[in-house]
């Protein structure tokens, strides 16, 4: 008899697996019955708390992603975008100019000749100070591009007001005639107190080196209030003229290259032209952009921390209360021969199921929330998308909920471990 207390070593491993499968299966079926029949209110409130927290996390992260992915300076209707591969940069200081694409004017011309590509334009973004004759200098983001006369949008502004082509480029000599045209966003126009036909002087870091004189441009149009770039102080200008002003003509540098046309053909042309560049097709959202935008990254990190904290607090409290009400069940399990680790496994698996189910419902709510936020924003303040959903949110939200569950689980486990079988069965 002295050996009877020990399980026989034969078939110990298969038996152990069967036992753990049994414990998990028992917990699952018990959880389901509790959620649908016996303790609907308690389970529903815990699941709802997790779901709402995860939904909030998804919506805020979606807004942060849109913030990182968009911004008015990158809001365009291009079908394919080429940007430099960020891993190529050695700078770790935020705000330092990042890598740029080279030979952009020449390669854009080559891309334009490909079948299926309607138009290709390098885009340079520079900060400049514009000054009207009777006003104060104002800082404006200048967006340099090559318009083609078709109705296109770059940086949220329509390009049609600029003269098609880029005459100053002159096959790379940068000595063609300057159009000196500028299209202002409503905000830039307001700050400069400028209207169509006004002349503005441009000053920027490279201007003195370029010529020693302060060049001037003429406002050809002010974009309508309804354009998506209306809220930012930006302006469109011909590419080569901005390159000349900033010194980017050496090497024909640009921040990105935009392609319009059939997505597959444009992607193929982009990859051929810049094999080492990052090629993104419209509609594809890259979540890694979150790490490149300080504000968006901070927003998503705060959402993550708040999500984990609130979720873990809710789960710990409600599951702790559930376990407290459930002490008799734990006592019964002990009385029928469930050792401590199996009883704690029942509690831990129950907590895990609750958080996973809550996170899945929260994902659904979050997706609906993103649609709602976009609808509300579109109808009121910000035409266009202000929050994105990305498939990576699915594992992210479930992972966050599981982390919250892991943070929360010690409390219900502690309540469970304190249960006295004699006190409970004697009641």
């Amino acid at each position, binding site marked *: 008899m002295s050996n009877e207390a020990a399980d026989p070593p034969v078939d110990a491993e298969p038996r*152990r697996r*069967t036992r753990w499968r*049994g*414990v998990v299966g028992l917990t699952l079926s018990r959880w389901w019955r509790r959620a649908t029949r016996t303790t609907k209110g308690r389970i529903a409130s815990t699941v709802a708390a997790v779901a709402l927290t995860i939904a909030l996390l998804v919506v805020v992260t979606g807004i942060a992603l849109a913030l990182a992915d968009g911004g008015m300076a990158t809001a365009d209707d291009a079908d394919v975008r080429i940007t430099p591969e960020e891993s190529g940069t050695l700078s770790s200081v935020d705000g330092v100019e990042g890598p740029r694409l080279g030979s952009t004017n020449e390669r854009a011309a080559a891309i334009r000749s490909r079948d299926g590509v309607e138009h290709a334009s390098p885009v340079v973004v520079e900060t400049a100070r514009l000054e009207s004759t009777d006003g104060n200098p104002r800082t404006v983001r200048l967006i340099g591009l090559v318009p083609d006369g078709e109705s296109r949008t770059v940086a949220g502004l329509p390009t049609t007001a600029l003269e098609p082509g880029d005459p100053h480029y002159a096959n790379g000599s940068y000595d063609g005639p300057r159009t000196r045209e500028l299209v202002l966003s409503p905000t830039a126009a307001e700050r400069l107190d400028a209207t169509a036909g006004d002349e503005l002087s441009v000053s920027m870091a490279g201007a003195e080196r370029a010529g020693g004189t302060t060049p001037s441009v003429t406002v050809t149009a002010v974009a309508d209030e309804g354009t998506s770039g209306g809220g930012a102080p930006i302006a469109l200008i011909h590419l080569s003229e901005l390159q000349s002003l900033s010194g980017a003509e050496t090497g024909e540098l640009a921040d990105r290259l935009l392609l319009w046309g059939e997505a597959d053909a444009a992607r193929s042309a982009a990859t051929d032209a810049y094999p080492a560049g990052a090629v993104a097709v419209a509609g594809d959202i890259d979540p890694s952009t979150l790490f490149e935008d300080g504000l968006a990254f901070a927003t998503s990190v705060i959402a993550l921390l708040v999500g984990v904290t609130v979720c873990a607090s809710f789960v710990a409290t409600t599951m702790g209360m559930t376990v407290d009400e459930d002490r008799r*069940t734990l006592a019964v399990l*002990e009385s029928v*021969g469930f*050792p*401590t680790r*199996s009883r704690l496994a029942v509690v831990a698996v129950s907590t895990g199921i609750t958080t996973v189910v809550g996170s899945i419902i929260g994902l659904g709510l979050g997706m609906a929330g993103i649609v709602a936020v976009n609808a509300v924003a579109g109808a009121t303040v910000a035409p266009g998308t202000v929050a994105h959903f990305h498939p990576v949110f699915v594992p992210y939200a479930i992972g966050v909920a599981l982390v919250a569950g892991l943070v929360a689980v010690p409390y219900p486990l502690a309540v469970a471990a304190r249960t006295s079988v004699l006190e409970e069965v004697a009641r």
Partner: protein
Amino acid sequence: MSKQSVRGSRSSARDRADERESVTAVRLEGVTHEYGSTGGRFRSGDERTVTALRGVSLDVPTGSIVGLEGPSGSGKSTVLHAVAGLLVPTAGRVELRGTDIAALSDAERTRLRRRHVGIVFQRFHLLPSLSARANVALPLVQAGVPRAARRDRATTLLEAVGLGDRTTHLPSELSGGERQRVAIARALSTDPDVIVADEPTGELDTATGREVLELLTDVGRERAVLVASHDEATLAVADRVVTLCDGRVDDVQ
């Protein structure tokens, strides 16, 4: 519900039945237990303790039913809990088929209880979110019995206690007598050597209590049954009745 069918549910253990004959399944020797005395290092020395058992000795042979009677607080439940390994007495020896329970670790006691002891509580203590069949199969989960075998065994036992048509019902959908029969089936699921029953008819009406007693009597033919009760009808089914008073054995009939 038929006695024959309950005994038939032990067919897997038939070959062990002969071995069990005339073996003392449970032996208590000079068992003393004080509640409040096992609390550990942080308790002060003058803390009040309650002595529940004082030198209790008794034997329960296999194939017999031993009744425990006595007023509330006399120590009946404490004896049952000591036999089930739910508590370790302060002094004395509790043997379950020759093994001293006090010498085992918590995990070993839990394992011993799972394999050799079935417990029937006054208030049934079924898990409210599990069906009757799942409740009966509960001890088999930890025993590592595969799912199909668990279901078969639980269904067989429920049929044996007359609840073959209630296997998927939740405890809340069963009457008191049916719940206690489910609890008895659960106590039998691992085919234990010893059944301890604490006021098994305490929550039942007379007719239902009689049915449950018939079941317990049937169970007791091949096992050692220790039943604590105030009820004369319940004690009448016992082969021997031990009377406890203030934690001492007062009388044996």
